[in-house]
């Protein structure tokens, strides 16, 4: 009788351990460490000098790393995390600002200058010919 009880307890513990293991695997598989690193490498540490969140060990950077991990655990995408942080801290927090209303000139001006410069050069060459 005693050994029967013991084996039932063993079975319960066995299934409990499987359940815990399954949960931790399921949780960890929702995002990778590489994904966290990719995000933190594109974020500026706002209280440090020239460091990314990934490089910095400051209090702010450590909090930010934990925040990003919890957001990823909650199923947020990289874009959602970036846009929520830009809303909170401004465009300055991201190294790669992306094309938006505010950064449109930043992205298009070099191309525009290149085209205008090229047009001037071509015009001059044709004039000589």
């Amino acid at each position: 009788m005693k050994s029967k009880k013991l084996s039932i307890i063993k079975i319960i513990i066995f299934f409990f351990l499987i359940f815990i293991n399954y949960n931790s695997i399921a949780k960890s598989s929702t995002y990778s460490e590489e994904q966290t690193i990719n995000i933190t490498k594109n974020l500026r540490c706002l209280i440090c000098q020239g460091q990314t969140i990934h490089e910095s060990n400051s209090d702010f950077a450590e909090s930010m790393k934990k925040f990003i991990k919890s957001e990823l655990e909650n199923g947020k995408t990289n874009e959602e995390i970036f846009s929520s942080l830009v809303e909170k801290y401004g465009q300055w927090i991201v190294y790669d600002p992306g094309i938006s209303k505010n950064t449109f000139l930043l992205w298009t001006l070099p191309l525009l200058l290149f085209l205008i410069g090229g047009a001037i050069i071509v015009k001059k060459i044709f004039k000589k010919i």
Partner: protein
Amino acid sequence: MSENQIFTDFEVVGLIEEKQINFNEVLTGKNFYLINIWSSWCEPCKDESEYLLELKNNTPVMMIGINYKDKKKNALNFLNLYGDPFDKIFIDKQGTISINFGAYGVPETFLINDDNKILKKYIGPLNDRDIYEIKKIINN
């Protein structure tokens, strides 16, 4: 989320009762809320306690404290020593709640209205001029 609006849809845990609550539920019934991020290990936080008590005693603002990366025992000792200006205090053990507010560290203070809009953000300890400004906004 519109510009200057604080993100409030997240869970917080009380410092004293240790009860979990959605932060949205905290922001009810008042026209103005002052969120102060503080810690017992933060030296400038000691300097600003008198200013927070001044606001608590002389304005109708709801004072909300966010205890940042602290130990409960130390936080309670701090409040005993320098006075407790808060109506509600929540803990931020990981520093992630402060990130939700768009904060950089301690001390930091946000004055928000009943639409959860940030009216003023003060990085660093409050001073006479800040208190004058906060009172002016609340009384207008």
